[in-house]
């Protein structure tokens, strides 16, 4: 992959850019793109964060000001404490952490089995898992919901429990596929050597495979947390009790009767963790994006 500093040959030749006309055109395009992108993708975020600082009266004015006329940072603390956003925030954290844990344990074990233990019919199981990637998620909404309401055979109702989020999250073919493909690259000799030393499967997984798989574990973990944090429809259906709801669902409910500046503050606070994750793990996210999108 070419970095920004090593110009690989692209559509336009360096020589073409070095001509006076080319250079002027390049500068114009660069300037336009920088301004447009900042206006289109960064400014809305600024508008949200700064809007929350405005007073309710100022927010209602038909002639909005770029910089708040009066600063009201207390809308952030009010949104956090009085509307109970802190609770919804913690709920989201709990849902994300649990989903991460369940997904890692279940999907890593499954990928290890499919990659290294290769049981009879393992390929059939893998194919059946991958086939679900082709299914439209929304077509399964109703039957999956009914399953969560009444788990077959044991007849347990998961509605209003975090398990309604955690358990279905484990059926993630993308995770298993990415993990298995990574495990496949770990040389068989390493596993055999550990086995001769008397290590069992759990030991091999924990001490040989997982340390090597750290980058791919990072990708899977980030996507697991981000996925739960962004989700709306599924928690809306399975967590009807407001006390257990994540912040995404709560914001939608509160949007109609919360003061506008507090709502904006809440929206900003709901976004911060994801934006921080993005800024810290950019490289991993981009890698996961191209790894997951296509194999060609």
């Amino acid at each position, binding site marked *: 992959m070419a970095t920004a500093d090593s110009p690989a*040959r692209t559509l336009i030749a360096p020589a073409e850019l070095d001509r006076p006309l080319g250079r002027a055109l390049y500068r114009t395009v660069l300037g336009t*793109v920088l301004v447009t992108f900042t206006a289109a993708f960064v400014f809305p975020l600024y508008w949200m964060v700064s809007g929350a600082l405005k007073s309710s009266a100022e927010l209602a004015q038909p002639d909005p000001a770029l910089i708040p006329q009066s600063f009201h940072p207390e809308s952030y603390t009010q949104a956090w404490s009085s509307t109970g956003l802190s609770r919804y925030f913690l709920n989201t954290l709990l849902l994300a952490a649990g989903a991460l844990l369940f997904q890692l344990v279940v*999907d890593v074990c499954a990928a290890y089995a499919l990659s290294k233990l290769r049981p009879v019919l393992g390929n059939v199981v893998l194919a059946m898992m991958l086939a679900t990637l082709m299914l*439209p998620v929304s077509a399964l909404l109703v039957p999956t919901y009914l399953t969560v309401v009444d788990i*077959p055979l044991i007849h347990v109702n998961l509605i209003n429990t975090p398990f309604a989020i955690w358990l279905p999250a484990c059926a993630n073919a993308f995770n298993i596929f990415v993990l298995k493909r990574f495990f496949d690259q770990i040389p068989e000799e390493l596993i055999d050597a550990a086995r001769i030393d008397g290590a069992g499967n759990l030991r091999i997984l924990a001490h040989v495979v997982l340390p090597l798989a750290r980058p791919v574990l990072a990708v899977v973990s980030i996507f697991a947390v981000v996925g739960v944090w962004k989700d*709306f429809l599924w928690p809306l259906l399975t967590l009807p009790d407001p006390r257990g709801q994540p912040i995404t669902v709560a914001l939608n409910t509160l949007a109609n009767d919360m003061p506008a500046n507090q709502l904006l503050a809440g929206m900003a606070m709901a976004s911060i963790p994801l*934006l921080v994750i993005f800024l810290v793990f950019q490289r991993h996210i981009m890698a996961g994006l191209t790894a997951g999108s296509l194999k060609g």
Partner: protein
Amino acid sequence: MKVDTVGAPRRTRQRPAAAPAPAPAPHRAALRRRIADNLAGYLFLAGGILAFALFSWYPIVRGFLLSFQQVNFAQPATWVGLDNFQRLFDDPLFLTAWRNTLWFTALALVFGFAAPFVTAIVLNELRHGRAYLRMTVYLPVMLPPIVTVLLWRWFYDPGPGLFNHALAVLHLPPQQWLESENLSMLSLVLVSTWANMGTTTLIYLAALQGVPGELYEAAQLDGASIRQRLWHVTIPQMRFILLITLLLQVIGTMQVFIEPFVLTGGGPNDATVTVLLLLYRYAFVYNDFGLASAMSTVLFVVLGAFAGLYLRLTRSKG
């Protein structure tokens, strides 16, 4: 004598068999290890299989069966044959929802397909600020969708909304972004495109970096202009990935939900009732799970056709 003659050949016959006589023991040990390995394998797979069985495989079968059943929580399900489909096709909203969804998908393709491609090509040519631009275009993808739609609802607001303010600055008449039958769907598409184009842009960007530079050089030596190079080198090289993302976008945008759910509720005058919104209403407002499942089955068949196409294309490539 008889015993001897019978015994002798038997002994000679047994001899070749006796030579690998120690073999059955290791063979049995190998078998035992194979069984143990398989046992361990399935032990490790158990969680995954259980999760998929409960929340993926079983719902697929059940969803199909449910479309032929009448379901409520009070009584056991009863078979009603094609009744649900009959009621579905009789509902005038069914056609409206499909028409709206196709309209949304078409509009989303115009924006969501072209915009990332142009953006990626421009970004790939720039020598400065690429890391920044790549990051900004992906920022909206990292916002929770509910935040995105609430933010845009505020932009679209007819009172203090930013968009009408911007129009006023340009001396243009204010618009009823979400309240007008003609404009509301376009407004939803704009939100959706803004929120999702980052992913597609980065996929295209990665693909563009895989186009061999020699091809451009050769074309240039043959006297091809920049536009000709774009047409004869870039686009043919990107054809496969363009086709794939096209299919994925069709599949994705046909499942649009949160934008109409939060921004318009399907209004004005049912102009933004989409398939998934109607499915949601059938199931979770009217508690008619049979009818909703029939809707799911129809959605499944339509999207399944695109998924099948996708599968064929990716398989024939790799």
